């Protein structure tokens, strides 16, 4: 077999390993819909129609991808380095509040471009800062970061609300929220659509992250750290420093997602607003096996489900959370396919 046809066969096998679970998840999800007395084909048809086929819906789907992709980029960095940063929501929200507070204040002194750039940078910085405590605890004392990032996430979400309600509140509104950034001052739209340029930024960020992880010495160091910490020590890597940098990069990208969502879509943050994207993206990143290109596809799929599912909730009467059921089923079937595939070629004699 030539290298090329082997690579081709590989690609087909990989694609099948993704498509089969997707199909199975849709079928199993359909059965659940049937059990609920809904028409599955009608539901799926509606979702596709609403989120992809209709131009307005498609724009909404693509816009939704921007924060998800940036979060995915952040999670890929962390997960590949063996760091389970589950504090995305806190990092996201604090960065969102920071940029929402800064942008209307800065726009008076600075032109639109620099204002947006400063806000995005500050989003990154705040996100990264919020990961510092878990990072130090993990690097110095080996404290489990799943616990610490989750705890910091709750604190971050609460702190955001406190800031909005007590400090940053716009006196002109009845509902507590930050001062709004005028629509014309938000992130520029792409080619006369309603999609803001954050999507472009996000796609570039995911691709750059992927290239960084696979094509640079730094990325390989992070991967060694993630795959075998003892080997990282053995090879003389600066494990503590790498851990902290990986945390900062991860949380910084997630912070950028928060800034982009505010600067591109909302222009303000209302109290108690929490889209909880941070945890939603985790399964997508696993589905994509930490691969940057694959994550773009899964994010598109998920955004479409979300956008379609939201209107389906109103029009077809299937709860919006059904989308999460589908993602869960997808994960289950992916794991199952993987397991069957492994046991099919499981083979080696016992160690001698």
């Amino acid at each position, binding site marked *: 077999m030539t290298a090329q046809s082997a690579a081709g066969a590989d690609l087909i096998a990989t694609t099948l390993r993704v498509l089969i679970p997707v199909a199975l998840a849709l079928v199993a999800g359909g059965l659940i819909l049937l059990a609920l007395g809904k028409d599955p084909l009608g539901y799926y048809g509606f979702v596709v129609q609403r989120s992809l086929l209709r131009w307005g819906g498609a724009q909404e789907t693509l816009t939704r991808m921007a924060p998800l992709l940036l979060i995915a980029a952040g999670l890929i960095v962390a997960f590949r380095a063996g760091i389970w940063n589950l504090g995305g929501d806190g990092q996201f929200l604090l960065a969102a509040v920071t940029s929402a507070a800064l942008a209307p204040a800065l726009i008076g002194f600075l032109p639109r471009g620099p204002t947006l750039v400063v806000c995005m940078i500050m989003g990154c910085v705040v996100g990264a800062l919020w990961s510092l405590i878990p990072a130090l605890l993990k690097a110095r004392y080996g404290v489990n970061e799943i616990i610490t990032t989750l705890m910091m996430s709750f604190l971050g979400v609460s702190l955001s609300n406190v800031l909005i309600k007590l400090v940053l509140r716009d006196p002109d509104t009845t509902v507590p929220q930050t001062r709004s950034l005028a629509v014309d001052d938000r992130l520029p739209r792409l080619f006369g659509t309603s999609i803001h340029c954050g999507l472009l930024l996000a796609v570039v960020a995911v691709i750059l992250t992927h290239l960084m992880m*696979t*094509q*640079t*010495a*730094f990325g*390989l*160091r992070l*991967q*060694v750290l993630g*795959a*075998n910490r*003892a*080997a990282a*020590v*053995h*090879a*003389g*890597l*600066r494990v503590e420093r790498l851990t902290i940098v990986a945390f900062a990069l991860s949380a910084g990208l997630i912070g950028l997602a928060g800034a982009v969502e505010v600067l591109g879509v909302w222009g303000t943050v209302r109290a108690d607003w929490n889209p909880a994207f941070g945890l939603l993206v985790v399964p997508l990143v696993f589905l994509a096996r930490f691969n940057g290109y694959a994550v773009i596809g899964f994010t598109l799929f998920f955004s479409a489900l979300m956008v379609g599912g939201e209107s389906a909730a109103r029009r077809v009467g299937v709860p919006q959370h059904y989308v999460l059921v589908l993602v869960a089923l997808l994960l289950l079937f992916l794991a199952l396919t993987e397991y069957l595939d492994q046991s099919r070629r499981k*083979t*080696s*004699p*016992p*160690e*001698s």
Partner: protein
Amino acid sequence: MAALRHITKRFPGITALDRVSLEFRPGEIHVLLGENGAGKSTLVSLLAGMQQPDEGEILIGGAPAVIDSPRRSMDLGIGSVFQRVLLVPSLTVIENLMLGGSWLKTLARAAALRRFEELSALLGIRIDPGAPLSGLSLGEQQQVEIMRALWRDEKLLLLDEPTSMLTPQGVADLGRMMRRLRDKGVALILITHKLLEAFAFGDRISVLRLGAVAGDIGPERLSTMSEAERTETVIRMMFGGEAGMAAAAERGHEDELAILLGRKLRRANTVDRSKPSTLAARALSTAPDFAETPLREVSFELWAGEVLGIAGVDGNGQKHLAEALAGQRPVRHGRIELGVTDITRGRVPQRRQRGVRYVTDDRLGEGTVGTFSVATNLVLKEIGVFPYWRRGISNWPLIYRSAREQIERNDIRTPSELTPVGKLSGGNVQKVLLARELDADANVAILNKPTYGLDLHNQRLALDWIVAAAARGVAVIVISTDLDELLEISDRIGVMFQGHLAGIVDNDDGAADKIRRLMTGAAAA
């Protein structure tokens, strides 16, 4: 007591056992001898209930038995003791022994203690049942393993390479225990690849070769043979008769035969100690870490082209010595000098740049990243270094090309340079490590148990690498628990005892006795 009838077990690509028939009798120590890969471990896993035979049947007490789980194996009166200790270190001896009980019943400590006394008398050993397991020596832990294996019933005891981690004294104790059990009518199966053990303990010796029984020497014949006759007969079986012996010699396997027949010093002592030393440790101490023994004021000098063996019972500070010298463990007091340079504060990359190399004994645990390719593992300690990386960007084509060259040059058996290193056999993983560490720029090399877990052929290769490196002028430290191996390749041998370097002896006649004394903590003679 137990018998195998025409047992065949296949794995994809190989037939691990090919119509093997064996009979294990009560009151007999039956040695199964064979190289790694001869099928010994597969046989063990069949009897222990971890694998099922593809063909043939196992008879227990004359009746066919299906051993489909380790629990079933125990129910049938088969007790297994594996190479590694499979007990819980934080529990006491008696708690460990009660673990196998039914989990619906409350723990019957009194009954357990009675059984403990019974077995202690049977084995002729004394261990405090209330002592935490982690406080026991490896030999004592193994005695507890044997008790656990006999806990339910004392019909058949299976010992898989039980001596691999014991001191000479521990081996002697084990031998005495096995004979006591045999005299009480227990059927014992001893699996080993060491010829001398087979002769010392075996009533009956069966030789496995390539998954088949190559020969069988019963007690009557064994007792009438002289040592030389036994050796010759067994070796002939292991290598497949006269033709096999000739072929083995032709393939350059005399060295493997030499390993089986006992070793002798292979290196002329030509180290020039009038020059300044290459590496010097000055009163080196490390901080204790969990249960590991730290270094205490270890000092020695090492010259170019010299092999310094480090002997000692496992866990006497050898690991800390290797790690401190390699730069992956901080030094608390003392200094390390490389030539005239103080490298005590240098980290692994700086030391590596100066030619310090470390082959760890934990090949998959820390030496390599199992899920990464062979190629990546070959450059694992060079990440970011020119020419494989330019300004931080990976030059994968170059990394792969260089990996292919090294695979070719060092005869690493792998489907390709992209194969995950974890899929290679132990010998080939070690070749990857040796290729990475004993490269042309090596200056000082520390090797921790370089032959541990390898088959004869790969043991030989690893020792050859070391000898060749020393001949090139590398200053070599070899840490090993296998004294024969150290006597074979070392110029001098140091002994670690409780974190101290108890002494360094020249490798000449009588070295072995001095070293054994030092290993037990007796002051240097």
